[in-house]
């Protein structure tokens, strides 16, 4: 433990974490949020900054498999963690089944909330407490969509949940990749 001296210049802290399978060792000021680390330092701009206050869910990423609002996490506290962002879920030619389901169901308009919606939905299915549209709506309430694409978002997630093939895409079984 370093000595606690208030008022002294904040010492940068060494942090090692894995982002989408790649290990990074960085020297960070304690005030850097996980979201700012991802966007500003690692240039992974898929995770969006909507409110920066935990109120919209656009910044949702998976930390050790659990969905959290990255805008309220201090990066220095995530030493040793495994982070997954939208960039780590799938690629344009190998979409994650949740991404495929969002496309198949036209589950977005402007797309700003979408990375957060998809990370959140993947996290939710991992949690295992959503058993139908009603619970999906409640357990996805932390992700706002200003375009109001909610109906299609719920349909896409329900489709992915059931492990059905996304109708218009020849993607492999949705269940397989969960």
């Amino acid at each position: 433990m370093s000595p606690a001296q208030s008022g002294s210049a904040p010492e940068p802290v060494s942090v090692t974490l894995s982002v989408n399978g790649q290990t990074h060792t960085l020297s960070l000021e304690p005030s850097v949020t996980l979201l700012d680390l991802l966007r500003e330092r690692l240039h992974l701009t898929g995770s969006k900054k909507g409110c920066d206050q935990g109120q919209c869910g656009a910044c949702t990423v998976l930390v050790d498999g659990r969905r959290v609002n990255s805008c309220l996490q201090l990066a220095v506290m995530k030493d040793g963690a495994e982070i997954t962002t939208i960039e780590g879920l799938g690629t344009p030619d190998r979409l994650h089944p949740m991404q495929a389901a969002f496309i198949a169901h036209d589950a977005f308009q402007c797309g700003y909330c979408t990375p957060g919606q998809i990370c959140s939905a993947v996290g939710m299915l991992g949690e295992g407490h959503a058993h139908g549209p009603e619970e999906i709506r409640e357990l996805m309430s932390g992700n706002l969509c200003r375009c109001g694409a909610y109906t299609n978002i719920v349909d896409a997630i329900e489709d992915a949940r059931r492990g059905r093939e996304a109708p218009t895409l020849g993607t492999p079984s949705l269940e397989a990749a969960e």
Partner: protein
Amino acid sequence: MINFGYTRAATIGEAIQAVAGDPQARFIAGGTNLVDLMKYGVERPGRLVDITRLPLKHMEDTPGGGLKIGALVPNSDLAYDARVERDYPLLSSAILAGASAQLRNAATTGGNLLQRTRCYYFYDAAAPCNKREPGSGCSAIGGVTRVHAILGASSSCIATHPSDMCVALAALGATVHVEGPDGARTVAFEDFHRLPGDAPEKDNTLAHGEMVTAIELPAPRFGSNHSYLKLRDRLSYAFALVSVAAAVELDGDRIAEARVALGGVAHKPWRVPEAEALLKGETPSPDAFGKAADRLLEGAVGQGENDFKIELARRAVIRALSQAAAGTPQVQSNKIVN
């Protein structure tokens, strides 16, 4: 956000020492409240002491048949724990009524207790606020008061405690385990938070450097006779205007014991033992519940804009107690109030 020092504590003692020895230092757990307030400049700690590596993530059965919950157990893990779902469903339900799934994943048991008010003026660093800046005045009095108190307020502060979880913990009669530079102690839940009086800057009775290490629940009772009813401006992901944690123990068709606590109405979860005592020996009925509600709300005063909360709370108490007595607790996913 201003910059600050950072200490990753390896032991409970080290964490307590680091905060106790530095008036500007604060513990940080899930960060979902503290980081938010730091961005607004409402909280300006000189050093954060990260307690997330401490061994406070377990739940254990107590010899008395209760449950001890480590301060770092995430809100979501607590709500979905099989023992909690079975033995303390009121607690599960209250937690799931709060925040969002992402926030509950990060938020901790201890942090939930220590979360600060959602008074708009407290969040606005430019507005006078006795809680943020003692002696500067209260902008809420005479201002926008939709989320403010109707009970136990003072002329210095009319803020409410925003937690849902704490309302259930009050009704269940939990105990808070605390450790500080002078050793460990326990605090009855009703003595943990305080009323604002003339020191609204103090939300609770913890001293600087004292850490919440666990919450203990007494042996389970009430079975399925409970309900957490939360009323708010939208169906999910919003703080309570009024919430009620209700539980009853029935002896045949009579009430042997009733518990009822209110959230969103005061600086702490609001519980009045005399109101609960009125229900002993009564058969469940809207009339009996109404009398208990009146006693619970005795002395309630609105601030103008939030006058509606008094009648809303009365009706919510009757509804929640009816749900509890019928064994049909409020479901948190569909929000249809039966």
